[in-house]
């Protein structure tokens, strides 16, 4: 069976050659590939800034960088990773590529707006690069006023504008997904027959369209303060710096759910496929996605428990913050229950899913410490918080993204990658990640503050462990670049459904033709149906 597999003659990658056919494309799949290249480059850049931070922190003294330059390193690490990597990642690459085929459509509702969203991303990144080459920015990715509006003498305006512009890329992607999912599902594909990947992206899109505009206007307010001397947050004129925090976190808290929900969507698909079993509690998982999106909007001030908000407000936000943890817990239990009486295999995507379980569990559970008022007062703005959000953002979101890339790579390029190397990479990422970030929980409880260039001697041992782990993690992240690129030319031809997965995207060729489907499919069955017949046909065990 394996020898007879050939790449289709005509597919989206060879349908039109030359730069113009790519830069002016309306094909969601080509746009997804361009996003893949763009955000991979940004991830590399963000990783370099992280490396700078971790190397400096190996010694208690600030001896590698001048203080100002170190401050720029962690700021730019955050800006690049949040705005130019994590927010787009799974939606712009996997969502863009897969949502139309998953719902039986030829493209998204607004292909030109999809292309526009990519252009806008590039323009936003260009502003950031300008800021970088003009000397960098040192406000922290959170741009707190009055430091960002009056005290910093670095390139705040171009960076802020870069983030502002990239926000519109995110809004347009979300808008496109919402309309597509509402209006372009194939006949017979009711809401509760949708793959959970689609539900996850729908919930994500709701957050993108409702939350991002608020941070956009907040950035504008900082911009007018800095550029024109207006006073909105200026305490010398009666302005309130804490107002900035409220407006900023109103978006930036839901933003973290933009980052994790799509990854959760990937996990649903991978766990189901590699246990050959339908997801346990489908509707609970679907509704949990929506619940996370909704509750995510009402908890923002848990970032501000020590910012001078009233005791009463703090209690309300602490209470609400526990509410947002529950749907995530429900999902995790449902995924675990899916494995029960499954038929499980451990190809690389499943390794990433298992890695996600471990890391997301820790990340999510440590959120409980932060939602608890008494403890948060102690650990706020320490390395405990840094560890928590990296467990979720990296251990959760990036594991999900990488797992998804490894799962759908054969669909994207028509070829398989080296299973051996990819498993090594997954294990290195898991081990390196834990070594990097687990010590930071301890450092945080000990009192080591965030954004510190130098620290007291007693924190050094744990910092060295963390930096060593970062080295391992870096190798784990670089390996995929090698074997994915290698697979483009030398990988085994994959065929339409190498994993024996369910879903409309696996019924079209790999790589798919530009129009995805010759004729619009009609859906009869439920999602995640696995039959022994299809299973035997899958050309990988």
């Amino acid at each position, binding site marked *: 069976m394996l020898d007879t597999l050939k790449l289709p003659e005509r597919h989206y990658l060879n349908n039109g050659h030359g730069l113009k056919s790519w830069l002016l494309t309306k094909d969601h799949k080509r746009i997804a590939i361009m996003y893949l290249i763009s955000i991979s480059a940004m991830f590399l850049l963000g990783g370099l800034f992280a490396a700078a931070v971790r190397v400096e922190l190996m010694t208690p003294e600030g001896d590698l960088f001048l203080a100002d330059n170190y401050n720029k390193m962690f700021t730019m690490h955050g800006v690049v990773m949040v705005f130019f990597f994590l927010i787009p990642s799974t939606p712009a690459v996997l969502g863009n590529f897969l949502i139309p085929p998953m719902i039986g459509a030829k493209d998204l*509702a607004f292909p030109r*707006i999809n292309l526009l969203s990519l252009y806008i991303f590039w323009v936003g990144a260009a502003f950031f690069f300008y800021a970088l080459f003009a000397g960098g920015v040192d406000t922290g990715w959170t741009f707190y006023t009055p430091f960002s509006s009056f005290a910093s003498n670095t390139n705040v305006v171009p960076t802020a504008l870069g983030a502002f512009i990239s926000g519109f890329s995110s809004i347009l992607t979300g808008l496109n997904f919402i309309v597509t999912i509402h209006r372009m599902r194939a006949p017979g594909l009711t809401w509760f027959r949708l793959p959970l990947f689609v539900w996850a992206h729908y919930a994500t899109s709701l957050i993108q369209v409702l939350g991002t*505009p608020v941070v956009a*206007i907040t950035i504008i307010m900082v911009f007018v303060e800095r550029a024109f001397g207006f006073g909105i947050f200026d305490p010398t004129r009666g302005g309130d710096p804490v107002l900035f925090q409220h407006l900023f976190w109103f978006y930036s808290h839901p933003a973290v759910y933009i980052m994790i929900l799509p990854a959760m969507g990937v996990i649903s698909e991978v766990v189901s496929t590699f246990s050959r079993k339908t997801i346990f509690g489908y509707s609970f998982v679907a509704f949990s996605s929506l619940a996370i999106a909704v509750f995510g909007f009402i908890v923002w001030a848990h970032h501000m428990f020590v910012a001078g908000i009233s005791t009463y407000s703090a209690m309300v936000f602490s209470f609400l913050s526990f509410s947002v943890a529950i749907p995530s817990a429900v999902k995790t239990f449902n995924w675990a229950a899916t494995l029960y009486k499954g038929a499980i295999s451990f190809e690389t995507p499943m390794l990433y899913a298992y890695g996600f379980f471990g890391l997301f569990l820790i990340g999510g559970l440590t959120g409980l410490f932060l939602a608890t008022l008494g403890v948060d007062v102690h650990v706020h703005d320490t390395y405990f918080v840094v560890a928590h959000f990296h467990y979720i953002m990296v251990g959760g979101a990036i594991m999900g993204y990488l797992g998804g890339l490894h799962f759908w790579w054969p669909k994207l390029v028509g070829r398989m990658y080296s299973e051996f190397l990819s498993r090594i990479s997954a294990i290195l990422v898991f081990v390196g990640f834990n070594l990097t970030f687990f010590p930071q929980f301890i450092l945080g409880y000990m009192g080591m503050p965030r954004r510190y260039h130098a620290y007291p001697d007693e924190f050094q041992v744990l910092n060295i462990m963390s930096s060593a782990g970062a080295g391992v993690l870096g190798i784990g992240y670089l390996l995929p670049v090698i074997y994915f690129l290698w697979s483009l030319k030398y990988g085994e031809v994959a065929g339409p459904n190498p994993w024996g997965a369910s879903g409309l995207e696996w019924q079209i060729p790999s790589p798919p033709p530009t129009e995805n489907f010759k004729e619009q499919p009609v859906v009869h069955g439920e999602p995640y149906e696995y039959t022994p017949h299809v299973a035997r046909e899958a050309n990988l065990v």
Partner: protein
Amino acid sequence: MSNAVAHAEAHGHAEHHTALQHHFETMQQQKEASTLGMWVFLLTEVLFFGGLFMAYLLYRTWYFEAFAEASRTIAIAPGAINTAVLIGSSLTMALGVRAAQTNQRTATVRWLIATIFLGLVFLGVKVYEYADKFEHHHVPGANFISESPWAAQEQIFFSLYFTMTGLHALHMIVGVAIMSVITWMAAKGRFDEHYYTPVEMAGLYWHFVDLVWIYLFPLLYLVERHN
């Protein structure tokens, strides 16, 4: 008559309108998608302006005296004229959509041009108002001069005034540009009774920008005017 039928014959699928994009199955689906898309976009605009309204709400509660005094220094007449102009432009816009809907090309173009004209009048009045503010040293920052005991907080009022009306004016400029494109398309006969969605969507956007002004006018110009 539109070019749609001529295109359909040349194209070889007699059933579909020239304007049907090929990733949609029917014109109906395309129109529904466009409409939903525009409403979602307008929702994002509500949140966008919303941040400024939140800041306004907070500071007006804290510094009412400052806000009232600052608001009283703003001349009502230009603002009132602009309000009438914008409401008028929403009327001409609605009439333009109606004309497109009933396949009256000339009337469509005329009503759209009227809308653009009124939009430009609005912007012209705004230029006058802003210039006036510079002269009277009401621009926050280095330019600002005030004898009032609440001078500091008045700067916050004016910061919000300029940011909110400035953002609104930017939306008006974009709106005028969009209207120009739509007018050109109408003049070229791109619309008929089966396909006038762009006119309708542009109309939705225009009405929204008008609505934002209707909130801005009393909040910025009419604070405590009854004294």
